[in-house]
């Protein structure tokens, strides 16, 4: 059955142009190398739409799969179901006002997005951040990394069939939410980091909670290792599934754990260290196989490395202010705002105009978010609003990887592969 008559079968009731072009591009994919065979008596070729609403796609993503029986011949992705034009919004807000939008991009680890924006603006505007703020940011980022990887573990193993792991990891995530609650005032989308430092200092209560978490979490991690590390079922589902070959990985721009599981030890924390990552010791877990199992091991080891970093940060945490004192660059502390005239004026100016990087300055700064390299390319026109803020989202590149590694896999492995790549649609769709 020639699938060139798919257009006659598609009966779109909305966005007709869009559906037509999507199915046309699916048809055109790999046309030079595939053989169109006319005899298909069992009618085993079919086009399956894993639609935007699906229990196992992480967020709203649409895959159009051409199947031959159970094997996927080719796949096309349709993203943009969560596109809100965040870059356009950025051109209309001051840099500090944009902070909550960054939380909502990679919504599994909001702290690292905040730090990404802050460090990018601090680079372009040449702001000096006090030492204590650097260490607090590092603790927050590593907690966010653990939180994101826990959710990845829960959902990937739940999609593979073991629903219990989801409940276990959410129990741990609730502990991190409690820490974030004490530290930043909100469980989840924190916006704790500020340009020039952080919003407020760690209270003793929060510090106690973090220390306790750093004590007890490695035992929980051991439980997950005990369940999954030598589990025959888990291995059968994940070994040699969704293989990303080492020679392809760089060309297709895989980022983060996906790239590290394919053999390249590329981590922004070592490539271009920010926030005192050059003063703590940690390793970069790497694997060579590039399959789903390798990604699993890489992320589990990253969680242990994160605990190591948190312990070192707690030991090294210096005393001092948590935000820079410069009135043109950072918000004054609330004491000054409430009890002094200059403080109130500074607060007003920062909210109204905000920090103004020099005109014509452009800079790119990336952090190592749990999903990969999250970078901000900012072009400034001298006002408090950026002229252009381009967000380099790791999930966007990792989804492109998906289009390439799914060809040839079984359709039942799709959910496990998507789980292994761990995309977050909020940042992929910006």
């Amino acid at each position: 059955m020639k699938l060139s008559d798919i257009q006659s079968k598609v009966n779109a009731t909305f966005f007709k142009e869009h559906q037509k072009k999507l199915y046309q591009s699916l048809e055109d994919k790999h046309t030079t190398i595939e053989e169109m065979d006319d005899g298909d008596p069992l009618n085993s070729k079919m086009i399956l739409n894993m639609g935007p609403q699906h229990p196992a796609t992480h967020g709203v993503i649409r895959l159009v799969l051409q199947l031959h029986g159970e094997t996927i011949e080719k796949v096309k992705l349709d993203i943009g179901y969560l596109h809100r034009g965040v870059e356009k919004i950025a051109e209309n807000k001051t840099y500090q006002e944009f902070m909550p939008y960054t939380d909502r991009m990679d919504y599994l680890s909001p702290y690292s997005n905040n730090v990404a924006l802050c460090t990018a603006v601090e680079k372009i505007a040449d702001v000096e951040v006090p030492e204590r703020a650097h260490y607090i940011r590092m603790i927050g980022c590593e907690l966010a990394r653990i939180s994101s990887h826990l959710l990845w573990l829960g959902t990937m193993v739940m999609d593979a069939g073991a629903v219990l792991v989801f409940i276990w990891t959410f129990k741990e995530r609730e502990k991190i939410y409690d820490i974030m609650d004490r530290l930043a005032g909100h469980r989840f989308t924190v916006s704790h980091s500020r340009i020039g430092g952080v919003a407020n200092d760690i209270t003793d209560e929060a510090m106690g909670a973090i220390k306790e978490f750093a004590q007890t979490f490695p035992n929980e991690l051991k439980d997950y290792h005990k369940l999954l590390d030598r589990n025959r079922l888990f291995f059968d589902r994940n070994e040699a599934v969704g293989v990303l070959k080492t020679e392809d990985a760089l060309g297709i721009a895989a980022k983060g754990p996906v790239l590290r599981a394919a053999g390249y030890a590329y981590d922004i924390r070592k490539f271009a260290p920010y926030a005192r990552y050059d003063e703590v010791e940690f390793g970069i877990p790497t694997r060579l196989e590039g399959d789903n199992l390798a990604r699993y091991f890489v992320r589990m080891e990253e969680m242990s490395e994160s605990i190591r970093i948190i312990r070192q940060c707690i030991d090294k945490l210096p005393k001092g202010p948590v935000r820079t004192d410069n009135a043109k660059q950072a918000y004054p502390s609330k004491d000054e705002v409430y009890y002094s005239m200059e403080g109130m004026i500074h607060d007003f100016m920062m909210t109204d105009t905000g920090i103004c990087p020099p005109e014509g300055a452009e800079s790119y700064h990336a952090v190592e978010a749990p999903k990969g390299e999250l970078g901000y390319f900012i072009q400034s026109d001298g006002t408090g609003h950026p002229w252009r803020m381009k967000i380099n989202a790791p999930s966007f590149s990792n989804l492109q990887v998906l289009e390439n590694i799914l060809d040839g896999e079984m359709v039942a492995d799709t959910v496990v592969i998507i789980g292994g790549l761990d995309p977050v649609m909020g940042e992929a769709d910006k």
Partner: protein
Amino acid sequence: MGVESALGEGYLTTRVDSLVNWARANAAWPMPMGLACCAIEMMAFAGPKYDAARFGSEVMRFSPRQSDVMIVAGWCTYKMSHAIRRIWDQMPDPKWCIAMGACASTGGMHRCYGVVQGVDNFLPVDTYISGCPPRPDAVLHALMKIQDKIKTEHSVMLDT
């Protein structure tokens, strides 16, 4: 049921009503339309600490044909709105809708070209939850409000 045509809104129908409503309210299976960050709080709402199962919302049925309450969690873009509407149409009556979070209720902080400023532009919403994202306690509160709403419905009269 020909009984209510004979007795009208009398004692029998209100008794049957309370029974049916009690059954429906305590087994409101949600259909999570988890789009964005509120979906994570919705997962926490179904998780071990804020257990939704004790309210009857035991299973998150991802199939619209088997669910009662649709929880729209996250900002709805114009591109996604058609899919959401189609899923809403596939849900059988009686059905209710919860707009979770600021983005689903009014578009939230995303006042821009891609986001529908509130899902009530194309869906009949029963309960709005404010918050960005709302705590799972707030989602439980909304679920309880839906349960109260179900308990005051005239189910028998509506079903015929």
